[in-house]
């Protein structure tokens, strides 16, 4: 009797597909519903950002790097600015550092709220995305008060921030902090505690910590695998050593853990924002650095903990007012590199959940 063989189908997920995050194009080979191979094709959003930097002054670069990870622009700015500051050995005034931390942590909340919504959407729940969006709007309003822009703020400067925040920003942030715990509760009732959601994410796409480290997985995904590592705690930059917060760690390394860590991180970010607000010192908001900076010849590498993982900027300076070479280490870029291994053997539906939980922003991947 001839062996009955089911036919393998190659399906293209993206670049135009309702559930793909941005313009990611996944070539997936399916055996029935099981993925046998996946090949991510990227570059649809490639804007040669790193090359453009080489022809722009440092101040101009900040405006452009906002567009790298467009969901968490403050982190891009922070990585870039702190690399330049390392190069120039500038001491940033304390008030500026505090403002940076407040904005970055608000940005983290905003980013995770989006992930909460889109992951729900990926799993077929249509409502969470609206709840996530509701809080993001409030955070964007705060950003607008601080920087004047909602998504691409261009707010951090080498040696400080652009200008001091208005009083409404501080009161607005305080009010947001008071309300957010309740909203987080809503999030958890709607999705985290849902039986179907748990069944869909528990045990899906398990990540082993040793493999994850070798594959360059960082951030919430690495913590989900059970490896407790947060740059803010373990290699503190800025003033993160002055805050009291916890690093949530997963136990099983599956999609649910990765999702849960995002929820827990929102809580911790909220704690940091509250502490920073209460401790916010007075003083200058910018060190004595000209806008058109000319860092000395040399190079610097600055890493920060962005919502997606370890975000880093490597700058080579030739002493002029334009960087000689800028390399952006984008966590999503490397996570996409891990996707083929993570997706092999998963079901199609799980693959969508996994891509959702990995939290990819194509602006950062393609730069």
């Amino acid at each position, binding site marked *: 009797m001839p062996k009955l063989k089911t036919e393998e189908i190659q399906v293209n997920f993206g670049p135009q597909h309702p559930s793909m995050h941005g313009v990611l194009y996944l070539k997936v080979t399916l055996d029935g519903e099981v993925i046998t191979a996946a090949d991510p094709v990227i570059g649809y959003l490639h804007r040669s950002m790193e090359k453009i930097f080489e022809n722009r002054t440092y101040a101009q670069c900040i405006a452009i790097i906002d567009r790298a990870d467009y969901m968490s622009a403050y982190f891009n700015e922070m990585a870039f600015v702190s690399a330049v500051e390392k190069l120039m050995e500038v001491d940033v005034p304390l008030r500026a550092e505090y403002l940076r931390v407040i904005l970055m942590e608000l940005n983290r909340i905003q980013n995770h709220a989006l992930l909460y919504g889109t992951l729900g959407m990926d799993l077929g729940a249509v409502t969470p995305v*609206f709840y996530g969006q509701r809080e993001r709007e409030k955070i964007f309003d705060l950003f607008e008060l601080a920087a004047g822009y909602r998504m691409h703020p261009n707010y951090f400067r080498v040696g400080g921030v652009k200008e001091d925040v208005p009083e409404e920003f501080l009161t607005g942030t305080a009010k947001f902090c008071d309300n957010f715990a309740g909203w987080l509760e809503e999030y958890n009732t709607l999705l985290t505690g849902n039986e179907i959601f748990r069944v*869909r994410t528990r045990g899906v796409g398990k990540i082993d910590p040793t493999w994850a480290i070798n594959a360059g997985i960082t951030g919430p995904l690495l913590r989900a695998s059970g490896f407790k590592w947060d740059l803010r705690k373990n290699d503190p930059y800025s003033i993160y050593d002055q805050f009291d917060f916890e690093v949530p760690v997963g136990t099983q390394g599956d999609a649910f853990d990765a999702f849960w860590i995002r929820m827990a991180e929102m809580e911790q970010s909220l704690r940091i924002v509250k502490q920073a607000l209460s401790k916010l010192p007075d003083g200058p908001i910018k060190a004595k650095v000209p806008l058109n900076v000319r860092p000395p010849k040399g190079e610097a590498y600055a890493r920060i903990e962005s919502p997606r993982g370890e975000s880093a900027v490597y700058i080579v300076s030739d002493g002029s007012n334009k960087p000689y070479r800028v390399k952006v280490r984008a966590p999503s870029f490397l996570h996409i590199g891990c996707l083929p291994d993570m997706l092999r053997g998963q079901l199609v*539906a799980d693959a969508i959940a996994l891509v959702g939980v990995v939290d990819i922003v194509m602006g950062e991947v393609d730069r």
Partner: protein
Amino acid sequence: MDSGAIIGMITLKGVLALAIGIVNIVIFIYMERKVIADMQVRFGPMRVGPHGTLQPIADVIKLLAKEDIVPAAADRLLFILAPFIAFVPAFMLYLTIPISENLVVADLPLGIFYLFGILTVVPVSVLIAGWSSHSKYALLGGLRGAAQQISYEIPLLASILGVIMLTGSFSLVDIVKAQQVPLIKLGAFTILPRWFIFLQPFGFLFYFTAALADTQRTPFDMPEAESELVQGYNTEYSSIKFALFFLGEYSNALIISALSVIIFFGGWSGFGPIPGVVWFFLKTYVFVYFIIWLRSTLPRIRIDQLMDMGWKILLPLTLVNIIVTGFLMIGR
């Protein structure tokens, strides 16, 4: 009456049933949009008519005005045929639904059996649509949809066998009439009517779960899992053909709501001076609301979990339900 008049009567009744069906589907669609919008902290349609009440009509006009595309690689004949195979059975179902004691096109002695017989034809249309589109998303969606529907038809039918055993009839009118006697009586007042929800609570649970899965509503909307398969088996469909699929699906969801009222919640029976028709629609729309509510809150179950649930949990449980019902009937 001569035969011509009889045929005329039947045609008239059929057209009436179709009209009632379509009007209710339009209400269903509008309600779905509004209720979901409310649950998602937004307004939903507001522009067309007062509070967007004319939105479904605008939608239909929009769909009709769209270009009717047949993909070049599609199997033309089957591609065109599939929406009709989905739509026609969906509306044949209305013929046996008793809206009130006299408002029924045909009270067939095998009413329930007829309904489920017609429902089995729907997955064929899903498969044809998926295959003939010559698109991978459609193919996968079609395979999923058909597999899901045929696996849930068995528990669906088995879950209401308990009721049929208690009634001794397949006729929907008989089933409602069997529920119009009181179950618990205090003097002349009926405290609890003999609705089958009280006699067959588990049967109802199984029925509703299986019915949701059979009509592909959330959380079982696998064939149209838009996050995976774009739009499932009707990805390649546009214009009037898409509208037919769309209407067919909503019609099926409406039918299962109406059926749960008829089989488990006493159909048109109610109390007070309010006519039975009102009671019937009131109860039906409670279930419609429930279905919409589920859609707005729940994520989607995975296809293998769905199959497991159908074959390994629901089917054995419904069979147990039948056996227990049988024993109770003998024991009484």
